């Protein structure tokens, strides 16, 4: 059994225009083994972010069929906080801002919740300082409110800071590379790559093959219209880069699944 195993997953979301539930995942199958890196690509609206949010347990999506098994546990029965405490992490593409809640308070409570024990202020400061230095985040961030007035790049740094602090087993990056300048991209993805060595699994959602330079994916999947329509090795990503999604999908011998 794989570390994460998604079977025939179907899901709907409430569509405000039609005022109806709209099918958004139409039977997703994906296996992720411990210590492997997967990249999920696909056009806008193909269901990549939806899949990421459903893995984390977003309440807006209704799972209508299929299963997700995470280390032998039924993930779909777990609340988001429970999933997080069991080692799942989603780096948000658009993390919300929370007025009045200081970054330091949030990070400490997040770390304590994940570890299941209180951390002394001094110890936490020392730990945090190390992580922040690595990511070139100034100390002044700690007193700011979560994502309030943060630039796109600052938000991404904060997401990676949380990733480092919580040290999860399975990391999902939802377009963490988009909106970053090249220096920031390099800094964050080198850091992530260093972190995931040693048994961590990674699911990277991205439009760009450039992230391959840092994370060396074992598998690449293409999503279209709520399904994974093609899976392959890193060469698949490169062919998307040169030929575009449609021809990469057309070349597919449908149903090839890697990583089982």
């Amino acid at each position, binding site marked *: 059994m794989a570390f994460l195993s998604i079977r025939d997953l179907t899901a709907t979301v409430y569509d405000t225009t039609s005022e109806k539930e709209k099918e958004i995942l139409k039977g997703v199958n994906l296996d992720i083994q411990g210590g492997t890196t997967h990249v999920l690509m696909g056009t806008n609206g193909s269901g990549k972010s939806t899949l990421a949010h459903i893995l*984390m*347990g*977003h*309440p*807006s999506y209704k799972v209508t069929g299929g299963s997700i098994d995470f280390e032998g546990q039924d993930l779909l029965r777990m*609340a*988001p*906080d429970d*999933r*997080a*405490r069991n080692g799942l*992490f*989603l780096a*948000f593409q658009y*993390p*919300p801002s*929370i*007025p*009045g*809640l200081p970054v330091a*308070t*949030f990070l400490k*409570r*997040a770390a304590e*919740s*994940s570890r299941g024990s209180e951390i002394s202020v001094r110890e936490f400061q020392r730990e945090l300082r190390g992580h922040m230095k690595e990511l070139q985040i100034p100390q002044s961030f700690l007193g700011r*409110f979560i994502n309030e007035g943060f630039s796109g790049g600052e938000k991404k740094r904060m997401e990676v800071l*949380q990733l480092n602090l*919580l040290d999860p087993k399975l990391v999902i990056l939802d377009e963490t590379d988009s909106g970053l300048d090249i220096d920031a991209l390099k800094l964050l993805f080198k850091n992530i790559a260093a972190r995931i060595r040693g048994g961590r699994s990674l699911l990277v959602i991205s439009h760009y093959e450039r992230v391959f330079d840092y994370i060396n994916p074992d598998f690449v999947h293409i999503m279209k219209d709520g399904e994974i329509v093609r899976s392959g090795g890193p060469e698949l990503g490169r062919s998307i880069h040169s030929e575009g999604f449609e021809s990469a999908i057309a070349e597919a011998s449908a149903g090839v699944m890697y990583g089982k």
Partner: protein
Amino acid sequence: MENNQREHLSRINSDYEDLYGFKAPTDYLNSSKKGLDEQVIRHISGMKKEPAWMLDFRLNALRIFREIPDPQWIDRDIFDSIDYNSLYYYAAATDKQFDDWDDVPDHIKETFDKLGVPEAEKKFLAGASAQFESEVVYHHMQEELQKQGVIFLDIDSGLREHEELFRRYFATLVPPDDNKFAALNSAAWSGGSFIYIPPGVKVDIPLQAYFRINAESMGQFERTLIIADKGASVHYIEGCTAPVYTRQSFHTGVIELFANEGSYLRYTTIQNWSNNVLNLVSQRAVAGKDAVVEWMDGNLGARTTMKYPSVALNGTGARGRVISIGYANQGQRQDAGAKIIHAAPHTSSSITSKSISHNGGRSSYRGLVKVSPGAHDVTSSVQCDALLLDNVSRSDTYPTIDVEENSRVQVSHEASVGKISEESMFYLMSRGIPEEEALFLIVNGFIEEFAKELPMEYAVELNRLIQLEMEGAVG
């Protein structure tokens, strides 16, 4: 998720009864009688050995109270439920006031011990006062301040010991005919604080008064007068709680603040009355040249609160600031707001109002910003944010802006109504934070602007209070 949220939030203040709602014996009521008439007023005044002018003032106020109609601008049903004849207007649990907690009779001291009042005083107050029913039972101020000429007394002693100073200011900002409840207070007033800070004296550590109603159907008519003389500064904090009863109790205060030239005066309220208390308070301040007045107004409890702290900016360069939070739970009505009158040029003001409503609770912002003719170069900003936690609760804003001067006057008003963001909840939970704590963090963030203005210990207490009461709410 929404159902759970509602459940967590309904726990806020749900253990009020354990923490604050306990009762001490009420034997002292044997010597009190219910209802308000001339005889009761004469009795109160006589007990206090007041000068004749004060008795006249009270009796006149009683006449006004009987003639004046209820406020017309709010729902009548608030007043329909009041039975004035069933209230105690004066009760004293002890005939003495003490300045050492060890001397305070046990059954009263126990109450304040449970509320943490002596402990707070030891840790971070320059002076403290504790009122039990109608009288201040404990009063103490650091010697340091006495030497500097600071006067901090219960208001009855203030009248006795500093009659001339007292009379110069008393009832000049809130006259008895201002409104029905000002009249009621003026007739029956007892207890409260009298504070005078001499010119240039800065009191860096807060002074506190704690108001406790103990008996059912009790009316507490606190009266507070604070004068900050030229260049002085002071921060006064009041806290309030009461036991939980089925019948109404009454808290009707009149607070008058005088900030003379260049002074700084802050008045902080943490009102956590039980849900059978009607809290109808008149709070008014006047700020002289370059003076600053700040009202920090926290309304967590009470069945109905009607309170609109006001500042008249009478001197050039004066500044006024009001930050309030209101928390309206089931059956509660928080009608709070602010009034700022710009009566001089180069004055500025800001009002921030944050309300949380749930379980059918109702909160309103009712405010006035007035710029008088001749008050040029004025800025004022009003920000009202309401958080509604379900579909049965309600929030309203009733802002009035009245500008009678055109020259460089900037007045802004912004209002928002929102719910707990599902995205924010999901975000916090996705980091391993349990649902009830995520909710608590968001609610706390919402009132941060208020909490950050409190002395550290109070902010922690407010925080602890909410967290404590939300604990264990996940089923």
